[in-house]
């Protein structure tokens, strides 16, 4: 692998960000962080990450909005989106997937599953 893949963690809760950041770095990814929806959009445009770990409940712009905006922009079409949310209802999952999320995980999740899911989305092996 010539260059490590880039991952953006968009979540407003530092307590999950710290774990995710450590986990992703440990897996050898290049990690950046966004604390709200608007920052997430800006970082997606500037850093063009390969994958976004996107929380649904964020200030300024919700994860749904970010997802829809990303998928509507052809320039960003290669960005994979993995939605992480504390909303466990089927209807929300359906909405996330309909709006273009590539995968959807409900909190709390196993970090092992998350790592597997990330690798699967990026087409790489752990």
């Amino acid at each position: 692998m010539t260059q490590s893949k880039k991952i953006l963690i968009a979540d407003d809760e530092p307590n999950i960000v710290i774990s995710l950041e450590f986990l992703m770095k440990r897996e050898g990814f290049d990690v950046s962080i966004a604390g709200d929806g608007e920052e997430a959009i800006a970082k997606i445009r500037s850093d063009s990450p390969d994958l976004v770990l996107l929380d649904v409940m964020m200030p300024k712009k919700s994860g749904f909005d970010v997802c829809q905006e990303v998928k509507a922009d052809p320039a960003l079409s290669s960005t994979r989106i993995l939605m992480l949310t504390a909303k466990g209802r089927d209807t929300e999952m359906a909405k996330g997937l309909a709006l273009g999320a590539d995968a959807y995980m409900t909190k709390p999740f196993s970090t092992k599953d998350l790592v597997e899911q990330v690798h699967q989305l990026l087409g790489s092996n752990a």
Partner: protein
Amino acid sequence: MSPKNRLLLSVALVCAWLLIVVGVCGWVVWADLSPDEREALVPIISPRGALLGAMLVMAMAVSAIVLRDLHRRYVAVPARLAEDGRTLLKAEPTRRLTADGNAETCAFVDIINTLADQRQSLQDDVETRVADARRSVEEEKNRLGALMSELTQSVVVCNLDGRILLYNNRARLQFRAMSDAPGAAGGGELIGLGRSIYAVMDRHLIAHALENIQHRLRKSAAQPVTNFVTTTRAGQLLRVQMAPVLGVATTEGGDRPVSGFILMLDNITRTIENEARRDEILHTLTEGNRASLANVRAAAEMLDFSDLDDELRTRFRGVIRDEVKAMSDRLDHSASAFADSLKARWQLEDMLGADLVAAAQRRIESRLSLRTKIEEIDEALWVKVDSFSLLQAVTYLASRLSDEFEIRELRFRLAAAGRLVHLDLIWSGQAMSTETVMNWELEPMRFAGENSPLTVRDVIERHDGEMWLEREKVKHRAFFRLVLPSATPQEEVTSDVYLKGDSRPEYYDFDLFSWSERNHEHDDQLLSELAYTVFDTETTGLNPSQGDEIIQIGATRILNGKLLQGDAFEQLVDPKRSLPPESTKIHGITPEMLVGQPDITKVLPALHAFAADTVLVAHNAAFDMRFLQLKEEVTGMQFDHPVLDTLLLSAIIHPNQDSHRLEAIAERFGVTVIGRHTAMGDAIVTAEVFLKMIPLLAEKGVRTLGEAREAAQKTYYARLKY
């Protein structure tokens, strides 16, 4: 021509005939004789001329006698019998004909008398049966009344116009609890025989529920009932079950049309509040802890890695401590305190998806004149919905699409998605921005004459569903996707279980629904069939325009020609001014009695509701109406009911009487006056007098409301104005 003249004429004709026969015979014989024979005959005939004449007269007399006898037997007797027969037929069924005339006529009379006997006994029989039937109906009514009063559920029976035909005591109590009117009228202005249920419930809602029931009936559903939850004006939450009352089929074995409906009401405000609280706690405990758990779990799993440096390890431990503490706090909080905001749970009903779409199509096409089409529908899908609010939301979205994006057609798609159902509203053309969709979702739904405080978002949340906008770029189309919960299909039982079999208890048989069509055109309605509110006011003085005010209102109602004693409205009113001592002498109301009474702005709305859909009646109505009308602006209540004045009506009935004062009229009609000069007492006297006037007005050709109004206008008194 009378029989006597006919007799005279025929006698004259017979006499003339005899003369002609004798004359012609004489002339022929004479002409045939030779001159000699004539010479010989003349001396023989001429002395006997008188004899011949006498014989001729005698022949005439005999003919006349024969004729008279024939006339009597064949004309006079039948004519008399015919007269008697007519009397028997029309007036006196007990009369019998007396036999007379010849044998044949006598036989006829016998037959007619036998027929009359038969008719008499048939009539008696019918009358007995009618009386029996009436008695059994009365019994059934009483049985139903007893049954209803024992029910712990509120029951209201209405006809298709929404008029209340029956209600039980429980319903009355419930409506009283819901009433926001002051004092004695509490609840009475909302419920009462002949009152409109629409005073309490949204007309659209009832119409929609009825439509649902009709639909189920057509599809021969096992139970053509529908459930819905509604809020009252006072903010109470009612769960309503509606069942149809079926009329009589026009053809043998045909469908029985819906002639009314039964509402069973449950006030679930409190239940819902409790349930909502429970839900809220559950929600905090599950959803609220998901994020924390995720944080703890992730941090804990990180601690397992051996390549962790000490600083990170400390931070992860910190996260776990923080989050576990936060979760403990949350648990304490939800256990001890209830959330402030309440999320009411609305009862959802199972509905065939195709029916929902069909209903949406009908609504959109009729309300918005927007073409609709079905793109794809899974006929087997059942959804769990509050169909009224959901259809409102769909129609609202369609109206915004039609108004703002000028779409020409809306297509429907209904498909299953796991345990969910996707309802798509598809249109060709541009899609709006996410902000616009957001606005549409969050604004209260207002369109085509409907005005709901709910938003599309509320409706979606009520269904625990979701909604979003999707684009189909290739087809240059866009659609709203509404995700709804699905329901397990209801079994369709054959119709004879419920519908055509007479499975309903017998006490539903009596016909309460005959006056359904009546209230449509007031002017053509008979006075005897209208509903009235008879009222009277006591005031501080006689000049409303110079600051005199109402201090008491009394009202009672007349329905179906009966004074409803229990249905009374009596209220003292704080006039917000001083009370002249002279007036106290008239009505006996003292200033102390008015302390703490509601003012006119509180009382008139209640009176308005009490008098809804009735004709107002008052003695010297112009006076009372003037007081009410001067308050229109302050109270916002317009008393634009039809008005009848007993003073003017009295002038129509007795134009030659000097006095048309209430006491004088009451005396003429033999109505006992009690409690004169209290508003309620006068209202009751006026009502009783009015009831006596109705038949007398009919004698004067004044039968309908329109005629009464016209006649009243013509009387001299109508020109007096206050």
